[in-house]
């Protein structure tokens, strides 16, 4: 898997044929001064052509801009529902849900673990009733929804399906993504419930279920974002993420799934940090590596199963608590890198996120920032505008080279299986060790002054802590949610709940059966998220990470 493969001499004609088939946005595709520009420049490789280094579609943003998908969620489901409607009114085109810590960990709001966390960093969902509030008055057949949840992902997906059904929307009409990337939880984000192997079984069941029932749904968003936030380098983010992707592919193939079918619906989620060209090289390398491995190693023949589609979020970890308003500039630069890297959707961070959850004003400014990139800069007129630059091509190759070295290590660790290599790397602390080393190296550079972070270790004048207007979530959210949960528990039919939970335990004990139908049946009885998690935990056990510094 070396350098760029030479295309046939008729690559341009082949591309032109495809480009002509694409429907284009209503635009003149000219510069601000009226100079018409071509859809792409260069002679060798074109967007939409294997290995897709230059983009996954022939016309890229001339047909469709990236989805401006702003992550939102705080307080109660009703609060978040209002924020969703606000984003849709403001021109946002997809919903993205942040859940609170208890929900992410499979704990109910009334668990002793949940004290102080209910509704703080996202929305609290205990039962189907909360999901009904969260999506009230939103036509689920018309929006695409992203749900950021992993450990209890199956339960949240089941609730989404059940809410849609109540309004007459069938599973096959539902479009969206559930993160459901459990491997990176052990490596970086640490929101796991069960050990890696049973967790992988749940993920595989979800892949099977969505492949059969939900053709517009992306059952896994393979996420490097958290790996980077935890401190990895760009190349580690790239390599660990794609290796996790290879692991899901190996698990699905082992479960009898067709790589061409499920491969089409895998998607990725990357970080866009501040080192502009490194990020762009990373995005380009991701597409190339994924396409090659899917084709050459996993035998995909359908081109759609070779495409690395990805969502991007600007780097939360790059935001400074000092002079927070200057974060708007950082976010703008990172958003531009994502656009130049060919992202399919983008969340731009709010400038106040190093201090607290974003206020509505800060979230609006963040959305406006990517709208400026999309509508004012002209970068959307030409696909892969930096392709062919010697520096950008070199950086793309370098990212690929570093990633391939890591794949070779994991392949070795797993005796020819990336999946086993990844399990072993989780168990022996390889991933967490590499990430912690990189994070510490970065901190030392900042601390020694060799790396300047504006406003933190240089250019520190102008910080006005007293001017800040931060979002506060009061204790009333917790009180409201506890009452709501209690009401639901009183109203539901406890016998129905109990038998649905027993069925989940029975299915969990039988690896030949799929967990999804049993979980969907359970959420409809208003069984809580934690009850469902416990019904599986009795079979699967729990995971405790070794504390390694």
């Amino acid at each position, binding site marked *: 898997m070396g350098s760029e493969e030479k295309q046939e001499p008729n690559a341009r004609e082949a591309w032109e044929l495809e480009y002509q088939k694409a429907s284009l946005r209503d635009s003149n595709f000219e510069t601000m001064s009226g100079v018409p520009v071509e859809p792409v420049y260069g002679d060798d490789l074109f967007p939409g052509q294997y290995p897709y280094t230059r983009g996954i579609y022939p016309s890229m943003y001339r047909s469709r801009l990236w989805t401006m998908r702003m992550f939102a969620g705080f307080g109660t489901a009703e609060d978040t529902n209002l924020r969703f409607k606000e984003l849709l009114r403001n021109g946002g085109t997809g919903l993205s849900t942040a859940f609170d810590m208890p929900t992410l960990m499979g704990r109910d709001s009334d668990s002793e673990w949940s004290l102080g966390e209910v509704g703080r960093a996202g929305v609290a969902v205990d039962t189907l009733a909360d999901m009904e509030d969260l999506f009230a008055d939103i036509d689920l057949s018309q929006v695409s929804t992203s749900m950021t949840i992993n450990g209890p992902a199956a339960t949240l997906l089941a609730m989404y399906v059940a809410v849609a059904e109540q309004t007459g929307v069938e599973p096959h009409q539902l479009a969206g993504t559930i993160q459901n990337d459990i491997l990176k939880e052990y490596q970086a984000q640490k929101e796991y419930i069960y050990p890696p192997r049973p967790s992988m079984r749940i993920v595989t069941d979800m892949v099977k279920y969505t492949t059969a029932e939900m053709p517009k749904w992306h059952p896994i968003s393979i996420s490097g974002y958290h790996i980077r936030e935890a401190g990895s380098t760009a190349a580690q983010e790239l390599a660990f993420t794609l290796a996790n992707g290879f692991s899901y592919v190996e698990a699905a193939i082992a479960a009898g799934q067709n790589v061409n079918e499920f491969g089409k619906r895998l998607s990725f989620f990357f970080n866009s940090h501040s080192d502009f060209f490194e990020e762009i090289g990373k995005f380009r390398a991701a597409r190339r590596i994924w396409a090659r491995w899917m084709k050459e190693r996993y035998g995909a023949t359908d081109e759609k199963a070779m495409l690395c589609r990805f969502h991007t979020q600007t780097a939360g970890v790059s935001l400074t608590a000092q002079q927070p308003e200057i974060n708007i500039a950082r976010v703008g630069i990172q958003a531009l890198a994502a656009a130049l890297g060919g992202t399919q959707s983008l969340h731009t961070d709010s400038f106040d996120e190093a201090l607290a959850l974003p206020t509505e004003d800060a979230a609006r400014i963040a959305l406006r920032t990517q709208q400026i990139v999309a509508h004012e800069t002209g970068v959307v007129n030409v696909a892969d505008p930096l392709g062919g630059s010697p520096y950008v091509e070199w950086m793309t190759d370098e990212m690929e080279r570093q990633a391939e070295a890591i794949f070779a290590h994991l392949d070795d660790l797993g005796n020819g299986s990336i999946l086993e290599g990844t399990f072993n790397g989780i168990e022996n602390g390889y991933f967490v060790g590499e990430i912690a080393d990189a994070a510490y190296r970065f901190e030392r550079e900042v601390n020694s002054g060799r790396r300047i972070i504006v406003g933190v270790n240089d250019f520190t004048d102008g910080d006005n802590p007293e001017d800040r207007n931060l979002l506060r979530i009061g204790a009333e959210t917790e009180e409201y949610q506890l009452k709501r949960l209690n009401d639901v528990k009183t109203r539901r039919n406890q016998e129905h709940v109990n038998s649905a939970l027993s069925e989940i335990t029975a299915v969990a004990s039988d690896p030949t059966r799929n967990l999804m139908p049993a979980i969907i049946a359970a959420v409809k009885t208003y069984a809580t998220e934690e009850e469902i998690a416990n019904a599986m935990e009795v079979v699967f056990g729990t995971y405790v990470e070794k504390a390694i*510094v």
Partner: protein
Amino acid sequence: MGDHQQRVILAKLGLDGHDRGIKVVARILRDAGMEVIYLGLRQTTASIVAAAEEEDADAIGLSMHNAGHLTLGPKMAEAITAAGLDIPLIIGGIVPDEDVEELMDAGIAAVLGPGASAEEVVATVQNAISARDKA
């Protein structure tokens, strides 16, 4: 104090899994010559107090990134006092400036915000320990 090596317990209390900061702090303190015992994720006030007693710790450091500091910080301070331990509790992470006073009133010895330098981290822990030793 003498030449006793300072021993610090670091932990993540509750569900919050953001451990980048606390791992960096662990290495900074270790590089400064302290003995660091990192308990890891998903600790409870009881497990942290038990470890502090068992290890005869000089200080406890918590890292909090989920806006739970006003609930969990004071709860941890109470647990330390209730166990009869006279050691400082230091909180690091995402803590808005205006919450610092409330935390100090609740018995937290010091708060380290985002962007604190290695020197500030070490000095804050050392000062918290020596203030307690003199008191």
